[in-house]
């Protein structure tokens, strides 16, 4: 019977397309509202766990302080993930080098030290961007290897020592004042509860949001992340765009590193350990697609908040640092799976 129908194209029986066209509602909601659903859910859990003291000013302050560094670095990392280069494994050493250079040049005064710290981060970003943008090196392997090389160079130059700003500074009043200013930037509070670090983080996020969504550069980056070949053949200077993205990332990471060094009062090659993972978690939590071309700074900010609130809740429950690793790993895997799954259901990955 069916063979006959197939042989006769003029029969009136219409062909029914059985393929599914409707999109899973859950995927759509998750994809649109994204991380802020999770943030609200986490806040509700936090309110239950902390018995109502979650919104106390001291708790909000501790959350903001804990996520400030991750937020600073994530505001740069979003450009890398967005451009389809997955992640930057050289973030730990970019942070460490930024902090160490700032401490080492503290004798020239506080503003110069900060500037040199940021410039060193930009230089690292330039090298990364040149190798990946120009020669198309494997982004993970290259940045990982470069991280190791930087660690080797830094450890040979400073012989694996830790640097203290007040010891590096000379005995003059000018240098000592600079060192004191350097220490105080991580401990300044504007008003009573809002720390300078949190404000810097939010300002950096706003700047990143502006660059990401309001400039030509952001649009170019989206095309490169979606399809490199198409971007190349439509006349975009891919090398220049990728180098810029990596420089932004290096600058953000080094600012994070300077604040880290100021917070811990020491600068050493171990300063940024673990930040590559936590920042990637925050960026992915924010709904950024690993293959590139999808994601937003607003979402990343939500991801950073969710990461901080999750850690805060785990502390409220009473888990130690070690048990946190387990929970963080499981949450990371679940979020990545949800991200991949919802994008596949929407046909976008």
């Amino acid at each position, binding site marked *: 019977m069916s063979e006959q129908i197939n042989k006769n194209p003029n029969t009136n029986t219409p062909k029914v397309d059985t393929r599914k066209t409707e999109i899973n509602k859950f995927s759509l909601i998750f994809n649109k509202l994204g991380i802020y659903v999770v943030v609200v859910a986490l806040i509700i859990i936090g309110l239950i766990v902390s018995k109502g003291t979650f919104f106390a000013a001291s708790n909000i302050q501790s959350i903001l302080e804990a996520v400030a560094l991750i937020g600073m670095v994530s505001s740069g990392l979003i450009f890398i993930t967005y451009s389809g280069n997955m992640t930057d494994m050289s973030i730990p050493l970019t942070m460490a080098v930024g902090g160490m250079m700032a401490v080492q040049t503290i004798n020239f005064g506080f503003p110069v030290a900060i500037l040199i710290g940021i410039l060193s981060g930009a230089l690292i970003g330039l090298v990364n961007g040149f190798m990946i943008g120009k020669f198309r090196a494997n982004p993970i*392997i290259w940045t990982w290897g470069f991280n*190791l090389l930087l660690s*080797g160079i830094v*450890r040979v130059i400073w012989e*694996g020592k830790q640097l203290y700003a007040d010891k590096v500074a000379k005995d003059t009043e000018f240098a000592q004042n600079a060192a004191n200013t350097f220490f105080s930037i991580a401990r300044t509070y504007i008003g009573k509860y809002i720390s300078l670090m949190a404000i810097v983080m939010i300002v950096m996020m706003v700047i990143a949001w502006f660059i990401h969504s309001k400039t030509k550069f952001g649009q170019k980056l989206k095309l490169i992340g979606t399809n490199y070949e198409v971007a190349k053949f439509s006349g975009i200077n891919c090398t220049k765009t990728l180098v810029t993205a990596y420089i932004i990332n290096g600058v953000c990471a080094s600012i994070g590193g300077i604040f880290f060094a100021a917070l811990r009062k020491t600068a050493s090659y171990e300063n940024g350990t673990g930040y590559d*993972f936590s920042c990637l978690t925050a960026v992915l939590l924010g709904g950024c697609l690993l293959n590139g071309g999808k994601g937003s700074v607003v979402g990343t900010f939500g991801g950073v908040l969710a990461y901080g609130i999750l850690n805060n809740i785990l502390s409220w429950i009473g888990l130690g640092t070690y048990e946190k690793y*387990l929970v963080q*790993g499981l949450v990371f895997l679940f979020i990545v*799976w949800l991200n991949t799954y919802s994008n596949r259901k929407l046909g976008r990955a």
Partner: protein
Amino acid sequence: MKNKKIKISANLINENRSYLFLALILIIGLFVDNFYTMYNISAATGNGSLVIWLGLGFTVCMIAGHMDLTIMYMSTFAALLCLGLHGDQGLPWAVCILIATLAGVLVGCINGFLVTKLKIHSFIATLGMQFVLKGSMYIYTGGEELSIGKDYAFSDVLNDTPVGFLPFSTYFLITTLVVFIVMIVLRYTRFGRNVYMIGGNLETAWLAGIKSDGVTTMAFVISSAACALGGALNGIYSGTAGITMGEKGISPLMIALTATIIGGTAINGGKGSVIWTWVSLVAIALLKAIFKKTEIQVLVIAAILIGCIVYETIALYNRNKTVGTRPNLHKEALKELGKSH
């Protein structure tokens, strides 16, 4: 004619760079005091054996086109499990090692499931699994270091040099044996060829009828199981196992990655050999015996790694430039023109 010769030699150097690296280290060793002594070489290779297991796992995964970051914590976890079971439950060593290896198989299965069924990128999936393992490891031990106590019998067997004239410990010989077995499996069995094929092009391999999911999972299982076995043996060999086992200033995972790339395994998979990784890891182990300072070790290893990555990247960049053109025809035409003139 002269030009041709140089080309062949450059290719030869690139293909055999792991052997050249080892030769270089051995030559440098001639100028170092007390390098060619029985004790020095057996200690260096024995201490480097843990990383050889990690490199084995990393290379198998990389040939299949994936990355396995869990290897380091897998080996530490297995060592802690092995020593813990022996100390607390009093189980014999064989059972402890078996259980530790089975834990490795389980983690490999989970990795494979995450990568093949949930379709998470292997780098990200194993990054998450790494932290799960780290957390469960801390919960198991409470952050303490475990030791084998006073039961030195098996530890002594592993530390011995069984073949009189060879300066290699039993542990290193077992490691080498397993590496050669894996090499034979990869090179001469159908499964091994399939691993190379899915690394080269996953879709083509699938269209050719290879059960790509199964093969990928198997690659992860081999990797994790090898690391677990190596880690358990390393715990017994060195007598203690802590959270940071094998980490002397530089993460063993980094050394495994370095050796895999120096050996010549392709970053995107489909090409490579376990033997190359083994040779370069032996070279790195001996290099550590030459340069005593950790800082210098890190710098030298990193410089070699960066050199290899830059060379490979630029070679690929130059090859991609000629895509669509026919350099052979162009050269032939030039030759004919030259003859006619």
